[in-house]
């Protein structure tokens, strides 16, 4: 055990026993009984409903499929600022339904190719690609559409042959099968460095498999996707993010030279907050809207010099403050963000990221 483990062990308190096994067992038995009763009641109800639906005169009709479950991308939970080399890909808000926000994860790194999964405006997601030819946004989609309109990129060789592919796999889909090749999704993206077919199947242990046609790329020609060389020999794909040194992370910069991003990742960005801080506020109709507030607009509170100072500061009421919420350009006001005052209720009206 190294020093880190020893210190961690010392820092976590040694608790007293708190559970009575008998009480836990009683609770487990109650829970099991309730579940069995519930399952029995649900089964009976389903049988009755199905029976009525199937046998009622004139009412025979096929049962409707279950309600679709909206796809999710858990990889974006760990999104951090993308490398500065990609900051130029963050376009003006409103130009497209989905624009990369500058936050994302490195999904695949293979040879000179790196595939990024980026959070996008409008509840969307974008695939960004970086290789020896440069970098570019390959395509974007609404996350909710991922299972009906798969998001993928096909990279062509110099002679136009498709040679590599990366496809976004929503949560639950783990395997990409393309001809005789398979790849496992990492960070919600599966990548095959060799492409033997344009028909692929995405599947997972608990989801229905889906066929995806990777035929002619439905999107504009990829700026970074053309590989000047034939495909590299097939080998194990490294799914390990390449940016292990977070000291190099920088916030993306908007068209006015202002940095922007989430306060939640400030600790990985030299402890500095960006000029524009991602937040959810309210627009002029009272609906939630995602945008940014200016760091300079944040209420300033004096730093306590000692415990007495801190106690005095805490005793003071702090009024609520409402500040403008901007688009990523830092000039277009799209709503407001309210800092709850200390005397106000414990919950506020907005959320910063």
């Amino acid at each position: 055990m190294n020093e880190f483990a020893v210190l961690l062990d010392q820092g976590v308190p040694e608790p007293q026993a708190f559970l009575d096994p008998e009480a836990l067992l009683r609770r487990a038995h109650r829970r099991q009984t309730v579940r069995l009763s519930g399952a029995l009641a649900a089964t009976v109800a389903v049988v009755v409903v199905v029976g009525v639906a199937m046998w009622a005169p004139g009412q025979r009709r096929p049962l409707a499929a279950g309600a679709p479950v909206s796809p999710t991308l858990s990889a974006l939970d760990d999104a951090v600022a993308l490398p500065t080399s990609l900051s130029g890909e963050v376009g003006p808000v409103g130009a497209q339904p989905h624009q990369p926000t500058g936050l994302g994860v490195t999904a695949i790194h293979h040879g000179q190719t790196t595939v990024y999964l980026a959070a996008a405006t409008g509840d969307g997601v974008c695939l960004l690609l970086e290789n020896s030819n440069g970098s570019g946004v390959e395509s974007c989609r609404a996350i909710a559409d991922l299972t009906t309109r798969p998001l993928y990129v096909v990279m062509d060789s110099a002679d136009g042959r498709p040679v590599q592919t990366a496809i976004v796999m929503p949560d639950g889909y783990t395997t990409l099968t393309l001809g005789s090749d398979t790849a496992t999704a990492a960070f919600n993206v599966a990548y095959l460095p060799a492409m033997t077919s344009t028909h692929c199947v995405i599947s997972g242990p608990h989801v229905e498999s889906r066929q995806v046609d990777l035929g002619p790329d439905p999107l504009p020609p990829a700026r970074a996707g053309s590989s000047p060389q034939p495909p590299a020999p097939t080998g194990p794909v490294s799914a390990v993010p390449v940016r292990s040194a977070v000291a190099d992370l920088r916030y993306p910069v908007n068209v006015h030279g202002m940095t922007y991003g989430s306060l939640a990742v400030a600790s990985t960005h030299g402890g500095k907050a960006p000029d524009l801080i991602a937040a959810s506020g309210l627009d002029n109709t009272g609906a939630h809207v995602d945008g940014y507030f200016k760091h300079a607009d944040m209420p300033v509170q004096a730093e306590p010099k000692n415990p007495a100072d801190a106690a005095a500061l805490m005793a003071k009421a702090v009024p609520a403050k409402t500040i403008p919420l901007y688009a990523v350009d830092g000039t277009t006001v799209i709503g407001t963000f309210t800092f709850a005052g200390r005397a106000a209720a414990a919950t506020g009206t907005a959320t910063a990221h």
Partner: protein
Amino acid sequence: MGVDATEDFREYVLGRQRALLRTAWLLTGDRGSAEDLVQTALLRAWPHWSRISAGEGPDAYVRRVMVNKAIDWRRRRWNGEVPTEQLPECQYLPPDPDLPQILVGAVRSLPARQRAVIALRYLDDLSEIETAAALGCAVGTVKSQTAKALATLRQHPGLANLELQGSAG
């Protein structure tokens, strides 16, 4: 459930609850949530106890439930989180000479998955393979999450002199 399984479960709860509570405390950040997490994991384990105890051992299953639940709870809390003008907790740690407390505070500010990896690898002393099994992910993911977590911790001003290196495993 047979008498043997009940007795086995009883012994497990008595013998392991303190260790599980420490891991849960690091995962959740507070004692109350940690107790809830341990109880929830054990309650979920009980219906399958015969299979769990005969397989790879109850620890792996219970830890996996704990980690999944902790991440789930953290997501729900995040959705309802309301920031104030204060910066994240790690930015405001006082220059406390108590290094273990600073380290724990820094670990608690990590994203949920990275925190889970650190808790399992360094508090529970699991290998990378065991951690991957507990988290239900690839060993490579454990390595990358560990590297990310350690890199973040290295940036913490209070941990500048601490040698943060992953152990083999």
